[in-house]
């Protein structure tokens, strides 16, 4: 367990840019992350006991499959790739004060267009160029998809929570329509897109099954973090997020920045879809919707929109989901228990942060 939280703990310390991150501070951070997770595991364990499943056996499988077995950890790291892209996109949007809740629609459309274009493109151009083009297409499609909410918010002031939620419903359906009607593989009976041959997918890292998409995801989230915290552009976005009116008065082109934020956020969500398809799945089946966005949104908040902390939370989510899937199979618990576990972890972490904050304040006072 100590491995999985180390990145987030050291990273949050890194974020205290003052450089006053002492050893004690790191230790406290570690405790504040590990403690709540343990509490959450105990609470979730009680639910398991109540339905007659041995919690220790369950957690044993989760740890073994999600973290400690070679194959399991490789799956976990592979699962992180799309989640990292999604988290990166959400960090940009949330820091700029825009509630892009349409990540799932953008993700699916990116995934479907990447799945449709990659198998065609690899036949007419070198594989690396084909994959690059598919990534580009997925990104452009997702960006275009986000233009409507972006323009409505930028120039009409229409609340983006409604528009992005609606666009995500629309996008999910449209992705299905595309799979069933436009991009359907004629060679199969189940509606799905043509499968990208394994050898044409994103290369795997070294001798493992980990997709190199992981590196792309890590790069994306770190670049986003640095852009948001270290560049003038990032500062502008954060000003828009902190106080849009003040941003107007300080001469920032808020409408233009709004559109830019949506474009970046959606583009990264589209890339998340592409990296999942081109790196891992190979095709999109009809009605496929992993709904990653719903789990990543609270994780990004808990990470306080800090890129490094988000990497830690994404890792935790991946361990829980990969380990949970396997534990569910072996103990005949429905896989849905993972949702319960993730939910309890999120709530207890949020509570812990609150009490930590309160404790610090009362100490200062």
């Amino acid at each position, binding site marked *: 367990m100590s491995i999985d939280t180390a990145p987030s703990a050291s990273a949050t310390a890194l974020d205290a840019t003052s450089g006053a991150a002492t050893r004690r501070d790191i230790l406290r951070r570690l405790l504040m992350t590990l403690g709540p997770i343990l509490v959450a595991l105990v609470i979730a364990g009680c639910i398991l006991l109540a339905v007659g499943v041995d919690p220790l056996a369950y957690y044993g499988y989760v740890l073994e499959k999600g973290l400690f077995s070679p194959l399991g950890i490789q799956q976990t790291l592979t699962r992180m790739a799309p989640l990292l892209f999604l988290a990166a996109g959400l960090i940009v949007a949330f820091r700029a004060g825009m509630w892009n809740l349409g990540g799932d629609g953008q993700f699916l459309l990116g995934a479907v267009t990447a799945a449709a274009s990659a198998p065609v493109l690899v036949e007419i151009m070198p594989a690396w160029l084909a994959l690059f083009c598919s990534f580009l297409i997925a990104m452009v499609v997702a960006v275009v998809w986000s233009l409507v909410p972006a323009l409505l918010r930028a120039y009409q002031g229409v609340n983006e929570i409604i528009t992005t939620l609606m*666009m995500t419903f629309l996008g999910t359906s449209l992705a299905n329509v595309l799979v069933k009607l436009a991009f359907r593989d004629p060679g199969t009976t189940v509606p799905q897109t043509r499968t990208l041959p394994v050898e044409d997918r994103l290369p795997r890292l070294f001798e493992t099954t980990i997709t190199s998409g992981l590196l792309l995801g890590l790069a994306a989230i770190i670049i986003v973090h640095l852009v948001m915290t270290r560049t003038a552009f990032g500062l502008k976005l954060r000003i828009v997020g902190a106080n849009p009116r003040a941003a107007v008065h300080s001469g920032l082109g808020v409408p233009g920045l709004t559109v830019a934020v949506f474009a970046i956020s959606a583009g990264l969500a589209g890339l998340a879809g592409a990296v999942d398809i081109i790196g891992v799945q190979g095709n999109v089946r009809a009605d496929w919707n992993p709904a990653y966005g719903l789990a990543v949104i609270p994780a990004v908040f808990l990470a306080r929109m800090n890129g490094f902390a988000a990497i830690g939370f994404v890792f935790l989510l991946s361990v829980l989901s990969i380990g949970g899937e396997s534990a569910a199979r072996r103990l005949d*618990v429905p896989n849905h228990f993972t*949702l319960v576990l993730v939910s309890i972890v999120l709530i207890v972490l949020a509570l812990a942060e609150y009490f930590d904050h309160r404790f610090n304040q009362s100490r200062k006072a």
Partner: protein
Amino acid sequence: MTGLFSEVFLSALLFGAVTAAIPLLLAGLGEQISEKAGVLNIGIEGMMLAGAYLGFVGAFYSGSLWLGFLTGAAGGAAVALVMALLCVRIGLNQIVIGIALTLGLEGLTALLHHFQFSRSYPRLPAADATVIPLLSDIPVIGPAFFKHHLIAYLAVALVFGMGYLYRRTQLGLNLQAAGDKPAALDVAGIDVIRTRTIAVLATGTLAGLGGAYLANVGAGLFIPFITNGAGFLGIVLAMLARGRPVWVLFGALLFGVCLSLTTAMQVAGINIPTDVIQMLPFLAVMIMLVLFGRRASLPAALGIPYERGAR
């Protein structure tokens, strides 16, 4: 194709539309209360699921639909209580907790369903309708609108009740103030936390009732993820309605027609993926927003926890 426009078919289509609209209406009205009071209640999907599951369990074991509605509403309210404690009392992030509750209830109800019902998939007998005399004899419209369970009429009546509440009562004004300028409400001597707690609990009760209607009347059974985004649709409806209950009703009916059309198309064997029809209401609303999109009139303090004396 002639069968598509026959009287029977049309009234069945409209009947289905109303049946599908009632849970959306209850969810939308519920969400509206929270949003008025300044709480963005993203956990409403979870509240509906709790209502659907407990509503079904209550009705199944007691044999009484009314008891089922009661347990469903209580289930929604119980989830709302957690939300109120975490987000209103101690001011945790509403989006984090809302999504966490939705995920948790999705998992929990699916889990309980697996251990309880996954072998038998029990069904409830069809809900007995309250037939309104005279009106129900009108061709097409009669059977479509006036042969529903009593709860459906109550839900529609609630639209006007809520309108009255918001315009004419102290509580309604308090709710509005809690969302627009909580500090002013506090200065006026009214407890903001209490007002918002009432709002969130009311949301949970209505959402739970909507979920119970969906499971007990609409489907007659509980399956995992039965709400299938109805709660999120409720959020969309509440936001589009800009604080006016009547618009929630219109919106719910629009979405209800499209949902019902999806089933009808399948029955009629028309070869369009149902996804196309599912897109229609969203397309309609997006086009409306593009054409007439004006500044959303959302409460100023929406999503911001109230802390006395802050700043």
